[in-house]
């Protein structure tokens, strides 16, 4: 029953710990698979270093408490917050700060109930699912509705705060959303502010980064732009950014989905004989140019059927 008590080491090899923990693999994967996000990557490298040192200090008996690991990810939609949260979960798992390393993604509706006595079990159910891993609460500020005194969101907030404090060994909570709204949320809920140690801001992607992202997305599905189409995409990105509901990489994904629909339609109407593989996998200028973004932009991010037929 007793633990195998071994003496604390007198020195540690940080480089070896870095290798053995597999942290290096995750950081490299982050670097290789995610375009842009320079400041985010920098913050994650710093956090990893901090946690490795903390781990070493605990092995030597220099520290005992679990560090506060709860985080906030702020930034506009489509800037990679969920994807980075997944990587963060496995990073924390490799470093031994969470036991399982899974990610549970929720919004207000998953936590807050409809009637009295509904919220606490709902919130606890989600927290229990996330234990051993990371709980990602998207648009966390919706939990707080000061305009309604009887809003059940307050109950969820209280339970969350309690568990974030008492069960620091068991789960890490990431609160995510738009930067300005998160700021206001933290101002009204100092409990969260004090329990969150790592704030990571996700900047918008540059036009060039979005172009590379679009090429990567197409390549993943075995499509490619021809030269004219690529140039058109550059114009598209510049135009789209100025219009409403712009959501970075998510807007790009939606634009490409519609372009593929138009391509398919074009192939049907043009086809006079056999179609080769190149034709089947090439996005041409017309497939992008037809977008309403070029006509003043009433495009929504929903792929509308009418839109596809244009």
């Amino acid at each position: 029953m007793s633990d195998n008590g071994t003496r604390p080491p007198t020195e540690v090899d940080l480089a070896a710990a870095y290798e053995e923990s597999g942290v290096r693999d995750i950081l490299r994967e982050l670097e290789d698979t995610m375009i842009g996000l320079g400041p985010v990557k920098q913050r994650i490298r710093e956090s990893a270093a901090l946690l490795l040192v903390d781990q070493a200090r605990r092995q030597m008996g220099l520290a005992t408490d679990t560090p506060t690991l709860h985080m906030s990810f702020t930034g506009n939609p489509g800037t990679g917050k969920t994807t980075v949260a997944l990587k963060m979960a496995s990073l924390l798992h490799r470093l031994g700060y969470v036991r399982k390393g899974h990610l549970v993604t929720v919004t207000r509706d998953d936590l807050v109930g409809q009637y009295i006595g509904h919220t606490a079990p709902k919130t606890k159910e989600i927290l229990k699912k996330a234990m051993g891993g990371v709980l990602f609460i998207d648009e966390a500020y919706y939990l707080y509705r000061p305009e309604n005194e009887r809003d059940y969101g307050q109950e969820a907030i209280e339970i969350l705060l309690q568990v974030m404090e008492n069960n620091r060994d068991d789960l890490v909570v990431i609160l995510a959303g738009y930067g300005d709204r998160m700021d206001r949320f933290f101002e009204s809920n100092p409990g969260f502010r004090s329990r969150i140690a790592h704030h990571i801001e996700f900047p918008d992607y540059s036009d060039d980064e979005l172009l590379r992202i679009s090429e990567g997305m197409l390549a993943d599905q075995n499509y490619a732009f021809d030269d004219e189409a690529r140039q058109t995409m550059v114009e598209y990105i510049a135009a789209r950014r100025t219009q409403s509901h712009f959501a970075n990489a998510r807007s790009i994904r939606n634009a490409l989905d519609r372009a593929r629909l138009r391509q398919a339609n074009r192939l049907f109407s043009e086809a006079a004989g056999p179609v080769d593989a190149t034709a089947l996998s090439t996005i041409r200028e017309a497939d992008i140019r037809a977008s309403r973004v070029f006509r003043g932009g009433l495009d929504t991010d929903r792929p509308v059927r009418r839109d596809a037929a244009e």
Partner: protein
Amino acid sequence: MRLRQGQFSFLPDLTDAQIHDQAQYAIDNGWAVSVEYTDDPHPRNTYWEMWGHPMFDNPDAAAVVFEINECRKEHGGKYIRVIAFDSSAGWESIRMSFIVNRPKDEPGFRVVRQEGEGRIIRYTVESYAVREPEGRRYA
């Protein structure tokens, strides 16, 4: 008297960390873990009160320890046990059962003998605790 039901009643009481290890073993085997409590520990009292449903979807045993501590807040003066259910064909029953909380004083059981003809004795075993009505036991 110390109630000896469950897998580990001859060992010192388990710590929360030890409970976590055992519950994790159940979860890793694909078994659903449940928390139950009672104030009548009779060996044939099969149905202890359920503290919520069995946990089917919790990958980490911290969830079990969390619920045990919630249960202790309300029923800390009673017996609390952890049960693991295996739903696989050919078993479909309990795989693990161990006590995680006990009352401070465990009065135990008395044997009641009803003597019959031919030296036959009909036995009844009764928890001393049930002489008090529910809600007032182990007060």
